[in-house]
């Protein structure tokens, strides 16, 4: 009898399907690894298990208290440890706190996990991240959770703390608590988990005992989709002097007319790497992965957004030529096929795909020699993706050098000339696309 049984869970956000039929069975006292590529739907699934999201279809059986330990800690940094552990469930009499009892209960919980070195009176925000995580786990226990969800709990821990955490997880398992554990690292998963479920594109593609499956089989399940070798490059311009190195950063060299892909898992340091490049090359064009917060001024018009990085192109003596600005923006909009009423439409009214096109359009307008693109096609529809990639390829063909981070391997294989893989802050050597397969990229990424 499973503690929790999910069958045929479906969830969509607008037009994107996040989950398209997930099955998951959790037994008491097991550590269950949830494995899948970025965007496979793992976090959405945990949100549904935790009751934070409601599925559109499917059945959930089992009434268990669930505690969710997020990638970002959810603690009150100003409060003492004991108050965080018992928040919402404080021992009281007539509305007054029974502080002694609260401290005792918190100390007892910490002691159970051999962490009596954490002072229940200490200010939580002053603890290390690893210790804060222990506080959060203690909170889950004090609320009598039977299922604990952990989303990449080791992503910010050092090795010694990881081992401590694993010992703690072992203790939880021995008490009969079920743990659903998300991690990208197969080695880590094998160390701590008994069974696994692999998600791909929002569906369960495999489940079973970790002992009876090899890493290669798991990777095949994670990647498993059909892919075409890189033949879809439309504009290859061999006539350009491709030996012309425009960027040399560490052991990485980038030539004119080249698209270099950076693969790797979320949190592996891809974004940080790109930002370092941008800091070193302020004249480069940079596209942030976070379009809403860092990419666009949503309240402003398309024209303002597109021309923002190079207003001098449509201004004279510090005064904008509004007609010129509109005309130039219209050119960019035509090139990228932005669907909008006109250049003065405000960006927040556009669809996600068209917003992304505006962000890319700004780079076209800026006309920088080196482009740094972080997830240029994340979360947008297929048509917009095609428009954006066609433009990226044209830019390369015209002699620009492009670095592109993407979580989606088929994208990298279709667009890039070379690919390098980021693993825990280290970048592999860049090799031509023909030397890679999706499996070999994934092997380096989870290594």
């Amino acid at each position, binding site marked *: 009898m499973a503690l929790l049984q999910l069958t045929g869970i479906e969830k969509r956000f607008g037009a994107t399907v996040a989950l398209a039929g997930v099955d998951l069975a959790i037994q008491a006292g097991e550590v269950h690894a949830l494995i899948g590529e970025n965007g496979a739907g793992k976090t959405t699934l945990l949100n549904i298990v935790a009751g934070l999201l409601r599925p559109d279809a499917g059945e959930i059986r089992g009434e268990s208290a669930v505690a969710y330990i997020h990638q970002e800690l*959810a*603690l*009150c*940094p*100003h*409060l003492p440890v004991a*108050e*965080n552990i018992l*928040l*919402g*469930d*404080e021992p*009281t009499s007539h*509305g*007054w*706190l029974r*502080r002694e009892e609260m401290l005792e209960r918190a100390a007892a919980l910490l002691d159970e996990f051999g962490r009596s070195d954490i002072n229940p009176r200490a200010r939580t*925000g*002053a*603890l290390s*991240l690893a210790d804060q995580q222990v506080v959060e786990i203690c*909170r889950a226990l004090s*609320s009598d959770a039977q299922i604990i969800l952990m989303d990449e709990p080791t992503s910010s821990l050092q090795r010694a703390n990881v081992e401590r955490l694993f010992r703690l997880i072992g203790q939880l398992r021995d008490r009969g608590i079920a743990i659903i554990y998300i991690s990208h690292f197969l080695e880590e998963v094998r160390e701590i988990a008994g069974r696994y479920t692999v998600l791909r594109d929002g569906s369960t593609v495999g489940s079973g005992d970790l002992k009876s499956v090899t890493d290669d089989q798991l990777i095949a399940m994670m990647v498993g989709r059909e892919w075409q070798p890189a033949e879809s490059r439309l504009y290859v311009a061999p006539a350009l002097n491709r030996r012309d190195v425009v960027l040399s950063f560490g052991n990485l060299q980038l030539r004119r007319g080249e698209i270099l892909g950076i693969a790797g898992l979320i949190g592996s340091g891809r974004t940080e790497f790109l930002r370092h490049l941008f800091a070193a090359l302020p004249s480069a064009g940079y596209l942030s992965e976070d379009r809403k917060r860092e990419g666009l001024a949503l309240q402003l018009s398309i024209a303002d957004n597109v021309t923002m990085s190079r207003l001098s192109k449509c201004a004279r003596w510090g005064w904008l030529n509004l007609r010129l600005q509109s005309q130039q923006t219209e050119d960019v909009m035509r090139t990228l096929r932005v669907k909008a009423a006109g250049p003065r439409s405000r960006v927040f009214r556009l669809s996600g795909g068209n917003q992304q096109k505006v962000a890319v359009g700004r780079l076209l307008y800026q006309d920088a020699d080196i482009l740094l693109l972080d997830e240029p096609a994340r979360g947008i529809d297929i048509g917009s993706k095609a428009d954006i990639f066609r433009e990226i390829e044209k830019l390369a063909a015209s002699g620009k050098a492009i670095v592109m981070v993407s979580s989606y391997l088929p994208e990298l294989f279709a667009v890039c000339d070379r690919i390098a893989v980021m693993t825990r802050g280290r970048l592999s050597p860049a090799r031509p696309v023909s030397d890679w397969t999706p499996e070999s990229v994934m092997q380096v990424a989870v290594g």
Partner: protein
Amino acid sequence: MKILENILAPVIGLVGVALLFALLTGSPERYLSAANLRVVLAQTMIVAIGALGMTVVMISGGIDLSVGSVIALASVVAAVALRNGMAPIAAVLAGIAIGGVVGSINGLAITTLRVVPFIATLGMLGVARGVAKYFANQQTVNAPPTWINELAVTFPSRPWMLFAPGVWLTIALAAVMTLLLRNSVFGRRVFAIGSNELAARACGIHTDRLKIWIYGIAGLFFGLAGVTQMSRLRQGDPTVAVGVELDVIAAVVIGGGSLSGGEGSIPGAMIGALVMSLLRNGCQQMGWPNYVQEIIIGVIIVFAVAADRYRASRAAEASS
């Protein structure tokens, strides 16, 4: 000893200001005399009572800009009640209650209309002032003399009291609020939502209900501050206390409160209020014109907040 640690900075500020003006005025025995201290304390009362409520609001991560208008409204309500022949105690309670009502409306606007506290209470700043003028018929309301006038006098009629009864009342309320914030479930949850509202909600705390309580309770204090105002002026004045909210916020911030929530202390805020009155009083004794006071107090507020930001960034570094 934690309480001492928390209010160390405002205490240093207080001692600094006192010493500075003792030296500047050239007659420390007069500036620091019991008589002058009484004057200062009587002047502090209204801001201090307001700061009792504002501290709770700011710890919860909110702000209330309607304080000055609520003070005027409560002073008018209490004076009208007296004029209409109500018992003094009933008039006092009416003044306090109107503050509680206004505060609860603030809380409701913030939680049900989903308006940020700054805007919701900015709106109330206008509404409460307008209602005060309506109740007062756009003029001051003379109240018949009662014991209420004794509340905030500089020199109490019974010399053994040393300070005005209102000063003792403020000290007693400050003690109660300190205990409430430290040791009651309500108080700790105020800290929790100011520190991390999402975490508090995830722990099953009804954050909306809590906020209505927070603004309601703060409103009661603003109402009491209004009654004190009426006691000092001996009349209800719908145009009084314009901009007092800024003094109150400054007192809380000087006392260690943070505009981003999760931090603040009642003893600190009381000292903050005292620092501001000592400054005002010192400037007056120096014979400096009003505008000098305004400039000095403005500068002090900015530096107090800068110190707050510096402290917060140090704390963030220490925890990462």
